[in-house]
């Protein structure tokens, strides 16, 4: 995988992960172009498209688009399930994850992704093992604060 982008229906970038060296300028250009392309597609269309010499695999979850760029020989369907597994991991960690969780805890979203994918390849597919690694880190946390949150991807009504 060359990169993964998460962006909202309004085109706001929520997470970006690059597995190939690119300049900041190039990254911004790619992001702009892809956000535009993907948002212009209709709901029933296929989840794959060719873009430059890469394949784009994307899927929408509630208000967020998850979009991956893979290389020619990579498998589209398994990439779609990479996205899904990542969503499941977020969901399990945050409990009914919603876009706000990713905005306010972006660093966690990055940590979870690093446990799951490294260098653009799947590192660990077991949900249990990934979350174990993250939760170990949380146990090491020195300060705790309990604020509840109850917005889920499905139930979230607020317009971002």
């Amino acid at each position: 995988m060359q990169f993964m982008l998460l962006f909202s229906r309004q085109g706001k970038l929520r997470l970006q992960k690059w597995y190939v060296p690119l300049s900041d300028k190039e990254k911004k250009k790619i992001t702009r172009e892809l956000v535009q392309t993907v948002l212009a597609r209709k709901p029933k269309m296929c989840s794959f498209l060719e873009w430059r010499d890469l394949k784009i695999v994307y899927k929408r979850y509630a208000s967020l688009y998850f979009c991956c760029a893979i290389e020619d020989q990579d498998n589209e369907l398994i990439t779609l399930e990479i996205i899904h597994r990542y969503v499941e991991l977020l969901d399990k960690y945050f409990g009914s994850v919603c876009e706000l969780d990713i905005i306010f805890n972006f660093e966690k979203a990055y940590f979870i992704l690093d446990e799951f994918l490294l260098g653009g390849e799947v590192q660990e597919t077991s949900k249990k093992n990934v979350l174990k690694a993250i939760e170990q880190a949380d146990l090491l946390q020195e300060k705790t604060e309990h604020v509840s949150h109850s917005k889920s991807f499905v139930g979230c009504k607020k317009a971002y």
Partner: protein
Amino acid sequence: MPAVSKGDGMRGLAVFISDIRNCKSKEAEIKRINKELANIRSKFKGDKALDGYSKKKYVCKLLFIFLLGHDIDFGHMEAVNLLSSNKYTEKQIGYLFISVLVNSNSELIRLINNAIKNDLASRNPTFMCLALHCIANVGSREMGEAFAADIPRILVAGDSMDSVKQSAALCLLRLYKASPDLVPMGEWTARVVHLLNDQHMGVVTAAVSLITCLCKKNPDDFKTCISLAVSRLSRIVSSASTDLQDYTYYFVPAPWLSVKLLRLLQCYPPPEDAAVKGRLVECLETVLNKAQEPPKSKKVQHSNAKNAILFETISLIIHYDSEPNLLVRACNQLGQFLQHRETNLRYLALESMCTLASSEFSHEAVKTHIDTVINALKTERDVSVRQRAADLLYAMCDRSNAKQIVSEMLRYLETADYAIREEIVLKVAILAEKYAVDYSWYVDTILNLIRIAGDYVSEEVWYRVLQIVTNRDDVQGYAAKTVFEALQAPACHENMVKVGGYILGEFGNLIAGDPRSSPPVQFSLLHSKFHLCSVATRALLLSTYIKFINLFPETKATIQGVLRAGSQLRNADVELQQRAVEYLTLSSVASTDVLATVLEEMPPFPERESSILAKLKRKKGPGAGSALDDGRREPSSHDINGGVEPTPSTVSTPSPSADLLGLRAAPPPAAPPAPSGAGNLLVDVFSDGPAAQPSLGPTPEEAFLSELEPPAPESPMALLADPAPAADPGPEDIGPPIPEADELLNKFVCRNNGVLFENQLLQIGVKSEFRQNLGRMYLFYGNKTSVQFQNFSPTVVHPGDLQTQLAVQTKRVASQVDGGAQVQQVLNIECLRDFLTPPLLSVRFRYGGAPQSLTLKLPVTINKFFQPTEMAAQDFFQRWKQLSLPQQEAQKIFKANHPMDAEVTKAKLLGFGSALLDNVDPNPENFVGAGIIQTKALQVGCLLRLEPNAQAQMYRLTLRTSKEPVSRHLCELLAQQF
């Protein structure tokens, strides 16, 4: 209201994020950010030492600001401090900041190396993983230099935790991809293969990715992975859906690992060991069988995971291309998907069938789906799916269905999406040419293309129709008649005027007998379009007119009148003006004989790769021409294309100075500036035929060679006298050539131009031209980064005795190369006597303060000084016999590494430098060549013979020369090319 998740309580961060989200305008957001930046700056600068928590919070805020798209120019030191914290979360945020921001600040890397080293050595698995993630996320060359040697050790150490092994494997993979030369192969590689047997599925999952990448470069070292991968795969495929616990995904056992294992197997040919192969075939059959079973769940995740494995299995079956039974089953399975209700599956089935279409075992099976595919082209609602359908039609096209497919594609073109029109045009043009049985159909098809989608018909397409018409006299009359009719349409596309103008100028006489298309009628028809056309087209029409004067003397007065008109003679466009003046004078001064000679009909174009095909490949990347590449199709006598050379590298990196037609196999380096801008279209069309340069200036080739002043007579001395070599390091100072140096050199044995080397920092391009024993080479060094290279110094080094054999004069280049800039270096080369080793090119520079050095082999091999020699069969045999001493002959029998295609072979032999002699060898399949190697001291006559054996996929190559080492060396060089 901010949502803060479990554990982490950075309240200040949450407040800041909420503030940003509440900003009503971009300006308000920027204001809020600037306020925060000022605050953070003052905290960092303040006298009071910040505690770890505050540092973490502020660094995190900076990261958030950066991710919003703003520049961050401070805070790096604080992040580096966090790395050395003992508190996990502080360390973690430090690493995250570094991973995300380091691209824009490579100076940082040296600062963090120490912290990373400590964490790697800490034996604390959580810390080790953080460090490995960081190295992988940054993945730069500097990281490779610092850590590539340590990571293999961590990966195979007996006491490493599973999670550390996983991270180490993928971290190493990332470093290897970025700079393969930095990862030393060694004893660890054998142990990595055995990770496929690891008990921990996660370790296997990570290791397979690494092995897949490594084995592509070193297939033999990793061969043992085949049987291990097969047995692992077999265990997964045959396990029940619950056996693998958490590695089962929606009732599918280990889908990610299965897909990766199947990808790994695609790096190798089918297993040789019968038992292993049997086991693998069983696996593949099991996957195909499971596809027919009812789903275990209605969830799309279940079917996606299952089908991901199925598609990868089909890819492997296609890759092996040896099991007819499996190929046909795969095709049937994909046939079912073609009508599936899931768009994704239809898309993938179309895509996958494209590759199946090129296998001889399944081509016919694919063809049975033609109606479904045509229907998809007409009814799919998603343009990307329609595009796949068009690709598949293109791939399944052969002589039996070409007319149907071409007409369907033409029909589709009328309503096709703008985005894919040009590609469809190219495909139609290629198919029409490839499968034309009668060329009138071909001409009709191309003219239809211009009529339906004139704007999308690129130059390559209409140049090509002109070439074909010029080369085939059986279609010229028909073409003239058809374009004449097409031009009568009230509104016809400008491309039609171009094609019409050119064809009538050449072959208008073939229809002049009919009073309805008499010369004056032809002329006034063309001239009625003149004023509506662009300068380029008008320039072309002027040439048509002067050709008319020769073809039809009766039109002379009228045409001279047109040329003489003030609107031509005083045209603001220089090209038009010049043509009008020159043509007018030519027509009045020259006698009829001279006119007839100058304006003679164009000679046939040499046959070579279709420029359209090259264009399609450029558009689609290598492999796009696969439908035409494969050797399965019968070699067709109608095939004007000739073969298609499978050299994606030439195609994907077209040199900027390549001529528009893309016809010249080796574009002349440093071609002089084109004589005129848009106006020289005509020259471009003609630039292939030597007799066809209407402008009197030098041809590009001559211009190049005339620029090639020979080096000073005492070249070996000149080398010392040259200012540049003063800085030459001795051979002992430069590093050994990079591992790929030989492979890179081999790419240039049969060609003179291309990209010699490329990594993430630097690209080196080469253009060269050789004549007799002299050569000139241009090296282009491109800085791919945004940072200036300093102390940039490329030098040429002669190892061993080479100095007495080859003189290379280099010019000094600027010692700074700006980011994104390119510098050029000129090398004058003189071959003094025969030589066996190429000179070395050593490139050194400083990038971001770090010294970089790189040694390559300069693509100068002895065959560059070949002069082709034509000779009759008798002479050849006589000389062949003269060179019959055993030491004069070198012979090699070797396996074909590329598809065996006669046209490609021909092109390579010509590129190698020898002449190709027809009618010498009694077996027409064989190739015979002759040439002389020119050196200053002596000439070496060379004869060669190449005998392909298509059944065995082998070649026998024999070389005879008057010097023993030359025979052997040429034989070795050439044998690598097939």
